[in-house]
């Protein structure tokens, strides 16, 4: 289970450029869906990777299902050498996505997000359309399960609807 307050507060304190893209974003849009992790689309600029490592290092990230006893170093080099990562941390599961299926990278995601205020800080999260597009593109059964509610929310909240 992810400790959202600790994660979001640390990311904000270090000025990390990120967008919440998964189940937490779905909840922010009023779905009753319950996730257990925090999925972030992050900017892959050199400066932001440095800030991201600074923000998450205190929580000892390790790749999920990493063999016990095998050493792992969470640093800027590690993040530069990959794109998408799934980590277990001392505050719960955090997935870092350099690219999101159906949407693209952080720059693409910026045009598909809205802002919310939680824990006294402004955060960005996917808008409903981006959540629907990314879940449709991901195509896994668990993604398809949330689509009916997302589509209903999208229809109910569409300002163009009468």
């Amino acid at each position, binding site marked *: 289970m992810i400790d959202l307050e600790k994660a979001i507060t640390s990311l904000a304190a270090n000025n990390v450029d990120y967008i919440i893209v998964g189940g937490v974003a779905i*909840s922010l849009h009023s779905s009753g869906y319950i996730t257990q992790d925090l999925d972030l689309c992050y900017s892959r600029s050199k400066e932001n990777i440095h800030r991201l490592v600074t923000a998450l290092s205190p929580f000892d990230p390790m790749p999920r299902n990493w063999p016990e006893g095998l050493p792992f170093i969470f640093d800027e080099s590690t993040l530069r050498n990959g794109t998408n990562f799934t980590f277990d941390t001392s505050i719960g599961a955090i997935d870092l996505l350099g690219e999101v299926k159906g949407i693209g990278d952080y720059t693409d995601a910026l045009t598909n997000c809205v802002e919310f205020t939680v824990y006294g800080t402004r955060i960005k999260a996917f808008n409903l359309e981006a959540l629907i597009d990314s879940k449709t593109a991901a195509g896994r059964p668990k993604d398809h399960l949330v689509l009916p509610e997302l589509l209903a929310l999208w229809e109910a909240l569409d300002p163009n609807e009468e």
Partner: protein
Amino acid sequence: MIAAARDFGIDLTLTASQLRLSPQERIDNLQSGMKFLAELEHARKIGPIKKQKV
């Protein structure tokens, strides 16, 4: 879409009540839900309590 969600089995009354909350309240509800699911998972791992023979 709303009818389709209802037919799919989504309880839209819960969705409607979530819509009335602030983003912080929605996040707080999510965190509570996570804790509850973690408790359920813990209980599942322990298994059912066996009845004692009287």
